[in-house]
């Protein structure tokens, strides 16, 4: 990053190769939208280029990058909100799981994650999927490490509650499906309107 800062912008490619996948993963988990996520990744690297002079040597690049990533996301939400009903190319749940039950659980998990409030979803994704240490997250969010731990734990507990509600709640479409059919879902597990209302 120091090289980039000193004008060797071509070396940003190395950083892009290293961080584009985790960054994309972060956005994809946050938004469930591939197109938006890819645009946001590009936006982050454009901002890195533009604001490269603000990077202070000796600071953690990853934290700085996530700081930019969070700001880009906030700006994007502000920009998109008026037309939010139109979401393009929703993310199909991809999973390592091979059994039908695990696939179903993964879909349910994704839905539960989207039902979490934005800040809780974010802290959970940062700590669980982005593998950011609690002190890094504390730096990013501007709070104490202890507070981060408490928030991660609470977010996890709320996710568990939502997941259990989704799991035990009536799912007429899923229950009528044959197991072989539900093994290849193309969209997150549908929830009944009553469930959605309860979760909100």
């Amino acid at each position, binding site marked *: 990053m120091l090289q980039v800062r000193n*004008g060797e*912008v*071509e070396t*940003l*490619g190395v950083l*892009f*190769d290293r961080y*584009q*996948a*985790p960054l*994309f*993963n972060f956005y*994809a*988990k946050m938004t469930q939208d*591939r*197109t938006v*996520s*890819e*645009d946001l*990744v*590009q*936006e982050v*690297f*454009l901002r890195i*280029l*533009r604001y490269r002079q603000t990077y202070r040597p000796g600071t953690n690049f990853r934290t700085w990058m996530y700081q930019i990533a969070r700001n880009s996301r906030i700006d994007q939400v502000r920009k998109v909100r008026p037309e939010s009903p139109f979401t393009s190319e929703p*993310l199909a*749940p*991809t*999973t*390592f*799981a091979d059994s039908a039950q*695990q696939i179903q*659980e*993964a879909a349910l*998990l*994704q839905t539960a*994650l989207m039902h979490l409030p934005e800040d809780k979803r974010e802290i*959970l994704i940062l*700590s*669980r*999927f982005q*593998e950011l*240490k*609690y002190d890094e997250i504390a730096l990013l969010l501007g709070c104490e490490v202890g507070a*981060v*731990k*408490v928030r*991660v*734990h609470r977010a*996890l*507990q709320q*996710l*568990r509650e939502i*997941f259990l509600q989704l799991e035990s709640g009536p799912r007429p479409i899923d229950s009528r499906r044959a197991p072989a059919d539900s093994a290849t879902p193309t969209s997150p597990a549908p929830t009944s309107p009553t469930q959605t209302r309860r979760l909100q």
Partner: protein
Amino acid sequence: MNCEQIAELLPDYLQSGLAREQASQVEQHCEHCANCAQDVAMWKKLALLPPDQPSPDSRARFDAMLHAYSPASSERSIEVSTGPSRQAFSPKIATPNVSDSSERVARWSFFAWLRSPLGAVAWSAALLIFGIFIGTRVKEASPAHPDEIAAMHAELTNMRQLVALSMLQQQSASERLQGVSWSGREAHLDPQIQSALLRTLRYDGSVDVRLAALDALSRHASQPQVRKGIGDALQEQQSPLVQVALIDQLAEWRDPDATQRLRNFQQTPNLNPAVRQRAEWAISKLQ
């Protein structure tokens, strides 16, 4: 250890940040406490969601962006930032996109030149020349036809006379007044209008209209018929106002037979004393 103590350790346990001893304490607790165990299980279950991979053309988009971004030109960076759609960064379109932007810059500089003082002088001169050219062409295209214009003028005069005559027949005094003023506009008095005005002067019910008719006729003193008509009108007038106006008009014209007319008029019985006095004054003036 109770759940509260475990809760403090749990986040670090989840990230494998605990020493072996503390980790085993958490594990032991979870064997008996379903609640804490479920938290751990939930954390582990999140592994079912694998990392999402960006599409292969992502790197190409980045390269296009890096190529378009030049530290020297801030304009370009703005252009890149305003076009975040993925198509704009796809490798196939990237090259034309850049050439398009340079074309835009060229067009921009042309307009900038137009805005400069020299440019302004140049295009105002061009506009002037164009205007003169158009003006001469239009003049050539429609040469004046004097005959046509004269015919149109005659037609217009006719029309005006018709309107004036019809207005003199109106019920409303104000419309008749307007008719009188219309008919008096012409430099040459048409015989038809002249007789209509004389008739109005004699028989119109309104004093104002009669006065206006006299005023209109007074401008055509050169016509003997008008002079005669006005002299005749004096005998038939009842209104002192019109009588005085007629006497004044006759005195002004200094007609040779006006004195005789005024003397006859003076003999009229029941004449208003002021009118009689005026007639005397006019006779004395004429002599």
